[in-house]
């Protein structure tokens, strides 16, 4: 599948520089797992970091620095053989970085119903931004809302449509403060998304505003 909706340059550069909240890092890493174009672009931003490291000033290390580093590597090498990579769960829907946060595959997600058949699961990240998995039954609309901050929505299964276009698996919508939108899950199948927000959403109607504290969004 060709991914048509990508990460912005801002987000790729900030991911490479390490300036993003954990939840945003998570959605960037998940998108890149599904998108070769953004993976390749990330390689370029990392290379900018490498070039900066090349040209940056130097600060002398302390005199016994080399000795203590060599001590550390000797101590390790005589101990455990190799840092074995953690065994990663394989899942058809959730790419590896998400499996790490779910603690397993899609079957291990602890969904909580939030009304209208919609379910969510908030993932454990630092508090500057929130990452949640959303399960939206086919054809269901998420109420019309705007944002105080950034909202990123990445489709993992099914598709949704809103004012910004049609988004299928691997595609990400980057919605800023000026976008009011009503995402509707495609009618053909239930939709699973990863959504990341760095501030509470602003719902237009009265009922969702009352429901908001319960939704936790």
């Amino acid at each position, binding site marked *: 599948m060709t991914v048509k909706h990508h990460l912005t*340059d*801002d987000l*790729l*550069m*900030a991911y*490479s*520089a*390490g*300036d*993003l*909240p*954990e939840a945003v*890092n*998570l959605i*960037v*890493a*998940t998108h890149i*797992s599904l998108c070769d*174009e953004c*993976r*390749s*672009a*990330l*390689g*370029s*931003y*990392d*290379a*900018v*970091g*490498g*070039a*900066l*490291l*090349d*040209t*940056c*000033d*130097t*600060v*002398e*290390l*302390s005199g016994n*620095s*080399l000795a*203590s*580093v*060599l001590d*550390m*590597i000797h101590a*390790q090498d005589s101990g455990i053989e*190799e*840092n074995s990579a953690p065994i990663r769960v394989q899942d058809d829907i959730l*790419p*590896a*970085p998400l499996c*790490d*946060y779910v603690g397993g595959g899609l079957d291990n997600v602890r969904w909580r119903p939030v009304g209208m058949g919609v379910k969510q699961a908030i993932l454990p*990240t*630092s508090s500057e931004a929130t990452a949640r998995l959303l399960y939206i039954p086919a054809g269901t609309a998420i109420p019309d809302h705007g944002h105080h901050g950034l909202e990123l929505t990445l489709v993992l299964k099914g598709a949704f449509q809103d004012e910004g276009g049609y988004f299928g698996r691997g595609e990400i919508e980057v919605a800023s403060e000026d976008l009011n939108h009503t995402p509707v899950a495609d009618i053909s199948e239930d939709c699973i998304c990863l959504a990341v927000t760095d501030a509470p959403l602003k719902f237009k109607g009265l009922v969702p505003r009352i429901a908001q504290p319960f939704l936790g969004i």
Partner: protein
Amino acid sequence: MRRIFGMFTTTVLSSDCQVSPVAKGMEMRESCAERANGTDTLTAGMRNDVLPWVDDLIAVRDARDEAAFIRVFGHFGPRVKAFLMRTGMDAALAEECAQEVLVTVWNKAHLYDASRASPSTWIFTIARNKKIDVLRKQRRPEPEDLPWGPEAEPDQADVIGLQQESEQLGRALRDLPEKQRELIEKAYFGDLSHSEIADQTGLPLGTIKSRIRLALERLRHSMK
């Protein structure tokens, strides 16, 4: 030749490597093999300038070559420490973290792929992750690895092509107008979001975004 610099080129080019990549590739393969065997036959004058530090990292990876590691340490240690101090760490903390970064270089050398990242780029990513770990106290989600198929050894032409692109990028960065380079450095070194840079410099957010965009355009242009 596989291009990884996707920000700058979106098409895969096969015939744009200027310095007969095959011949060069053979040369490099020989010198790598010699080093991996522990018989460092290169004299100081012949030290490989096309692939600075690649051979040393490969010797660390394949032969656990401590002399090569000490050279890597001597070159990158002071750079990593300077980088970490610019992210806001004091000298003592930066020293401790720089040591840990170099230990990670040793421990993770088996993951180093010279056709995917230059030594500086690879070590930058390790230092950056250390910064996130220490300053933000967060773990960093990484993309899923690509299923790389059966080809175990990367093509030497890819390795050389990547190094040349890296050097070209380094020159392009140095040639950026001061005001643009400063902002790119702040973003990478300072652990600052664009709006935090705005607070710090007093520049409007729009100016910062457009300067960074201009800088990236220039880099793209110079990589063509």
